[in-house]
């Protein structure tokens, strides 16, 4: 229930309440394999802080829900020698913020109309996601910032599939797939920054 409310807070599950909803991960942002990252010559340890936000406000439940996945993905990136939740020797710090920005604030209203027409009047809403990485190589160094964007489309009722989306079996799979893809894009961008060594 706790985790479910985390998703609810992200806006997706609220749409489920209006009836049959299908979830599509946008095709514009694709997963970049770890092998494509530009690996540093000598990876360093880093302290990782992850936060999921809903409209820019921290969402503690959703943060906990996705935290393990984010930590494991960064550990598996080979960009760092060690990923810890406590300060590390050189003070390297990586912040990952995944902000859910509903692109259409009237999403619930749309779904409500679909529900009133028993699904005959279908509708589509899109949740936007912005992943911001902030990396501070040492305590005195300049912050490197990278941003990636993604989206999940939700179709409610009788409406054709979005052409720019891959259908997912569940809301959870959509969120986890989106998270993996957007984070890989931001990590790849970080790995190519001249300040990332």
């Amino acid at each position, binding site marked *: 229930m*706790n985790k479910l409310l985390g998703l609810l*807070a992200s806006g997706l599950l609220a749409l489920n309440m209006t009836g049959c909803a299908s979830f599509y991960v946008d095709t514009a942002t694709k997963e970049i394999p770890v092998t494509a990252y530009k690996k540093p010559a000598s990876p360093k340890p880093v302290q990782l802080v992850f936060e999921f936000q*809903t409209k820019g*406000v921290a969402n503690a439940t959703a943060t*906990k829900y996705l935290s393990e996945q984010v930590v494991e993905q960064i550990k598996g990136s080979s960009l760092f020698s060690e990923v810890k939740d406590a300060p590390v020797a050189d003070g390297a*710090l990586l912040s990952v913020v995944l902000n859910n920005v509903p692109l259409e604030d009237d999403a*619930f209203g749309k779904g409500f109309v679909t529900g009133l027409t028993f699904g005959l009047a279908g509708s589509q809403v899109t949740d936007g996601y912005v992943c911001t990485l902030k990396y501070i190589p040492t305590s005195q160094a300049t912050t490197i910032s990278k941003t990636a964007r993604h989206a999940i489309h939700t179709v409610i009722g009788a409406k054709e599939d979005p052409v720019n989306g891959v259908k997912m079996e569940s809301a*959870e799979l959509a969120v986890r797939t989106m998270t993996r893809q957007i984070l890989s894009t931001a990590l790849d961008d970080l790995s190519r920054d001249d300040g990332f060594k």
Partner: protein
Amino acid sequence: MGATLINLPKRGLFAFASALLVLLSGCAQIPLGAPAPSFDIIEKAKASRTAPVAVGQFQIVPGVSAEIDKGLNVRSNTVFSPIEGSFAQYLRQTAIADLQASGLYDTASPTTLTGLLTVSSLDVPADTGQAALGARFVLTRAGKTIYEKELKANASWESSFIGAVAIPTGINQYTSLYHKLVGILLDDPDYRSANPK
């Protein structure tokens, strides 16, 4: 696990969602998400140039109803702390999480931070939501009080008449006040001068 619930077939999901809708408009017990460190507060902490502290007891201020520590009524639902059912303990854990991630938490420090919860409120009407959190922070060293001040954090936001939207938003806004309050403490010039590095 939320995954189990989310992977329900659509018909089942609809039934569950309907039940959830009832829950959200009825009398659910909703815990806050577990405290996790905030990047913004880590940056504040590092800029504060203060010494590490131990964190002692947190409780409600004497004379205030114990009810403010136990739960918040949000549209007939009860929001509560996952830590000992106490918002004072939630504030203590938030402070520990932020200070620990900043390298400013030391159980062996001669300086101890304690706190008394003075204000805890969350109001989620259909128009403007409001939340407030306050605490009297006390810093002691060798039995002597070197800092004592009541600090408050507030938030207001555009709410919604739909509970499934308004309640999670209100919970996120309220929860974010815990980090905000710790940040206000670390920003306080009196705290900084009382506990320099």
